């Protein structure tokens, strides 16, 4: 077991120590009274000896004792569960909140290079499993151990020899449990791996079922699936059988203990050193005796899983994302003069990506960036916005290095519209007012009008109050982008970063987006990833990028005259048309 992770997980309990202490206290009380009950029942039975030999007054007395101990034990039990619930759910909430905070502060390069599904699964599934493990641990671990010790003490108190029989037989149960657990573990791993394989295959093939059908691949596909499925079956029968063994196996040990107690106990009763009632108490102990063992072994499996999950979560929490405190320079009057000098950036230490990059954007200029996919356009934008940190060189706005300004401040200087428009679950109004919470309805409508979004919004059932479903599923791609433009129109940032859409927007909407872009760009320094010629032609500067470098730089006509890469790019698009 991973002690370090365990310790760290327990450190999350610290704010809830008072719950923990109370729970342990209640748990102890519960165990004592639960164990007392069979003793009292046994004593009560001793007052029911035979015909005419029932001592009713004493029986009543014992009955009251039984009732009392049952009630006290159950109140304690209820408290234990309540307290551990409170503690567990508070801890999982804390963990989730911390992890979320981590996600909000992690370097973007980390989030970009990791599958979102994985990050999400740590937030949801892993923390859920941690919660399960903690709950089991809190309620059953202490309880189980204490019950075993308590039972042994009580038995020793009632009759030493019979108690010793039980104690001697105990390891038998443990040995059986370990043997099974070890055997099962191997098969469970195998079964999990196979299920994973089957799941991945299903995900892929059902996900691509339209392609499978288009190419008539069904037959082969079915055969491959059935082959994996057959392997799942064979290993499944084994692992399920072994997994299901634990229960009857501990039961048989339990029954053997029970029979032994019965024989030895009865002989002692004959010998006169024990009463029939005490035998009955013993038998009910023997009956319940393996239960805590089972529970403890369950706790260990669950804790094992919880720790594995916790170490995955802690791994994320340990990534350094501490914001560099200090830089707080601001600009009084923003001109929008951007100078980029000797900028270098690499994703991996050994492979430089962007190298010695130099650009100057004068206030109000439009800088178009063109180049094939993967040429570094997006990386450049990430550097401008201080999403990524450059290895060398600097970016200055109005003469001040952005390293001397806070990230939030740098980002507030730009308005950004990306190709994949991001909307969140909420009303259209909320989505537009995302950058300016206090905006009035009038301002929001104005912004929407400028972004050509007003018309389609008022045609929706609830107008500006229409709820956007998960990831904007009820809007078209173009409409989503118009909303994102409206969002920027509302905050009126001094500079812009735009990413033109390559496709999948119909002509009319595209025209509207184009007009909205033009309106926004007026008088603002703009960096635009261009796919349209009109944009390129109007630009004050074109950066032609390839493999992370600016290979040509200048105005449209100048670049054409060079007969270089740009010339090739430009003509290749229209070659067929000529």
């Amino acid at each position, binding site marked *: 077991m991973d002690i370090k992770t365990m310790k760290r997980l327990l450190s999350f309990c610290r704010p809830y120590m008072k719950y923990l202490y109370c729970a342990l206290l209640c748990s102890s009380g519960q165990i004592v009274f639960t164990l007392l009950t069979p003793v009292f*029942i046994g004593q009560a039975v001793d007052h029911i000896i035979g015909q005419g030999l029932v001592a009713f007054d004493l029986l009543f007395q014992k009955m009251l004792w039984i009732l009392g101990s049952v009630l006290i034990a159950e109140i304690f039990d209820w408290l234990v569960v309540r307290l551990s619930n409170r503690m567990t759910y508070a801890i999982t909430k804390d963990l989730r909140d911390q992890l979320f905070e981590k996600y909000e502060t992690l370097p973007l390069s980390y989030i970009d290079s990791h599958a979102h599904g994985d990050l*999400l699964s740590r937030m949801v599934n892993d923390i859920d499993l941690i919660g399960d493990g903690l709950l089991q641990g809190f309620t059953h671990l202490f309880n189980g151990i204490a019950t075993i010790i308590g039972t042994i003490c009580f038995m020793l108190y009632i009759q030493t020899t019979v108690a010793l029989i039980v104690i001697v037989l105990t390891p038998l149960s443990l040995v059986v449990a370990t043997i099974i657990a070890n055997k099962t573990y191997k098969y469970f791993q195998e079964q999990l791996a196979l299920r994973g394989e089957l799941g991945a295959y299903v995900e892929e093939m059902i996900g691509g079922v339209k392609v499978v059908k288009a190419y008539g691949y069904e037959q082969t596909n079915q055969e491959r699936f059935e082959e994996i499925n057959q392997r799942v079956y064979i290993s499944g029968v084994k692992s399920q059988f072994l997994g*299901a063994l634990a229960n009857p196996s501990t039961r048989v040990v339990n029954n053997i203990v029970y029979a032994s107690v019965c024989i030895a106990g009865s002989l002692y009763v004959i010998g006169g050193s024990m009463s029939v009632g005490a035998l009955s108490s013993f038998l009910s102990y023997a009956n319940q005796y393996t239960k805590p063992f089972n529970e403890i072994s369950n706790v260990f499996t669950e804790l094992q899983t919880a720790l594995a999950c916790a170490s995955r979560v802690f791994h994320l929490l340990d990534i350094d994302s501490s914001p560099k405190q200090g830089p707080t320079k601001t600009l009084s009057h923003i001109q929008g003069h951007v100078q980029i000098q000797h900028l270098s950036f690499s994703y991996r230490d050994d492979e430089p990506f962007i190298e010695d990059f130099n650009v100057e954007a004068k206030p109000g200029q439009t800088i178009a960036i063109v180049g094939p996919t993967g040429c570094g356009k997006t990386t450049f934008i990430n550097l401008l916005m201080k999403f990524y940190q450059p290895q060398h060189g600097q970016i200055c706005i109005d003469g001040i290095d952005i390293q001397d300004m806070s990230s939030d401040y740098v980002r507030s200087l730009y308005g950004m519209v990306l190709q994949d428009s991001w909307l969140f679950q909420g009303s259209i109004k909320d989505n537009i007012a995302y950058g300016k919470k206090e905006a009035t309805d009038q301002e929001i409508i104005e912004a929407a009008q400028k972004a050509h979004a007003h018309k389609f919004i008022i045609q929706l059932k609830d107008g500006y109050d229409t709820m956007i479903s998960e990831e904007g599923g009820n809007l078209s791609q173009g409409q989503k982008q118009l909303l994102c433009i409206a969002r920027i129109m509302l905050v009126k940032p001094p500079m812009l970063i735009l990413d033109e859409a390559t496709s999948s927007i119909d002509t009319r909407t595209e025209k509207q987006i184009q007009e909205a872009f033009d309106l926004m760009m007026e008088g603002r320094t703009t960096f635009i990833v261009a796919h349209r010629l009109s944009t390129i032609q109007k630009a004050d500067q074109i950066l032609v990028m390839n493999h992370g470098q600016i290979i040509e730089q200048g105005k449209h006509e100048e670049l054409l005259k060079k007969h270089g890469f740009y010339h090739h790019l430009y003509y290749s698009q229209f070659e*067929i048309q000529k």
Partner: protein
Amino acid sequence: MWMKYLKPYRKEAVIGFFFKLIEAFFELIVPIVVADIIDYGILHQDQQYILQRGLLLLVLALLGYACALVCQYFASKTSQGFGTYLRNDMFKAIHAYDYENIDEIGIPSLMTRITNDTNQLQLAVAMTIRLASRSPFLILGSLVMAFRISVPIALIFICAAPILALAIYGVMSKSLPLYLKIQKQLDHVSLICRENLAGIRVIRAFSKQKQEKERFQQATQKQKNMQIQVGKLSALLNPSTSVIVNCAILVILYAGGLQVNAGHLTQGEVIALINYMNQILLSMFAFANVIVIYNKATACYKRVQEVLAIQPAIQDGKCLIDNQEGPLVTFDHVSFSYQGSHALHDLSFSIHQGETIGIIGGTGSGKSTLIHLIPRFYEATQGQIYIKNRPIQDYSLFSLRQMIGLVPQQATLFTGTIKENICLAKENASDDEVKQALHLAQASFVDEWKDGIYSHITQGGYNLSGGQKQRLTIARALVRNPELLILDDSASALDFATDAALRKAIATLPQTTIIVSQRVSAIMHADKILVLSHGELVGMGKHDELMKTCEIYQQIVTSQMSKEVA
């Protein structure tokens, strides 16, 4: 459905069931044997008898164990077999779906149904054999035994058992819906997290981290409160049942005392009765567990049943594609409605061998739908489509689709090598054929890789860029050298140089080609251009003709060309 998939394992199921009952029966005998030991062995001080009966207890324990093992083995075999058989059949059923069926359930849902849902059902089958028979048998058996020992005291059992059942039912029926609510709240927490990961740039650009954190914490706080709420309720389960059972034991002690005093009952029998009462409690808990599993399984059952019940509307034909005369594809007044709304309306046109056809129109104009009618992924609701002068329904689906090389909008690749992916379209394609197709599709970047066409693609092609994926899917269509090549807006992620080179390469092919696009430049040189608007064919002809006659086409051209052609 249960029966159908259990049928091959009927024998195993019955054997498993039977042995479980025997085990439960052995368990029921134990308290009686113990009572005998106390009442006879101890009373008469008969050591021999005690040892004999004690040995019987040991034998019962071992026999019970053996029975349990047999039961577990057959239960595992039955449930796993059931699940495997069911999954195979579901996978087959999904293969037979037409696209409308697939869209109806949705791909993510199909995936969970074939994996998680069948696992739940499998578990339900195993539990039925292992627990569903045992628990009620033990409850009833305990009652019967109580009656055999003493009728008046058995009446206490008759009263206590329903109260016990009611308490368990009460707590569970109240808390189960709350658990569902918590699950929903967890989905909400997960949604916020997903939104934040997807929109992280925008959130940081607006410096909204704090606001998002608050939104998230509100959601987790709400979840925590709900969990504590339901915890309050479910914490009642153990104490309440325990109190009920112990009260019943008190009554048994009192009534037992009266009976013993009157000589109708012995001390050992009182102990046996107490044991039976405890047995009932344990069995009821086990049974409640089975009910929870059943509850889950019923929902899963419905979802699985739905997958199997869907009958694709499209029926297979018999004819093979041959070299008949006539146009390759003819649409004769074809209309198509999709999920209740008109998607295509009254289309008529023909495509001849060797022609290049362009289809243009905005999003939602019906372009993709139109081309999906040709491989019969969807079936026309009105009118008739002919392939080589024969109704499309006459052809076998396999042969029809074999003729077509379709490149869908979404570039889908599977785990495996590049070659395996390309060979999906033509199983026995040689390395040279694959390379040639890649070359045609402008996917020569593969040559630069260390392992060439044997390079590995990870799931979903995450190690490739969008443009690379698109070119590979185009190569896949080309490798089968189809009579009809259909490109459904499949070059959208390509930069314009590559796009142009690709168009040029495809123009040299002799095949009949249909190109769907939103860009005029992609289709303006086609032999025939179909202009679609809101599911209607509003223009058909060459570029020059359409420029004169078709208003919508003119609009599209001017909106794009003014920007694109200097």
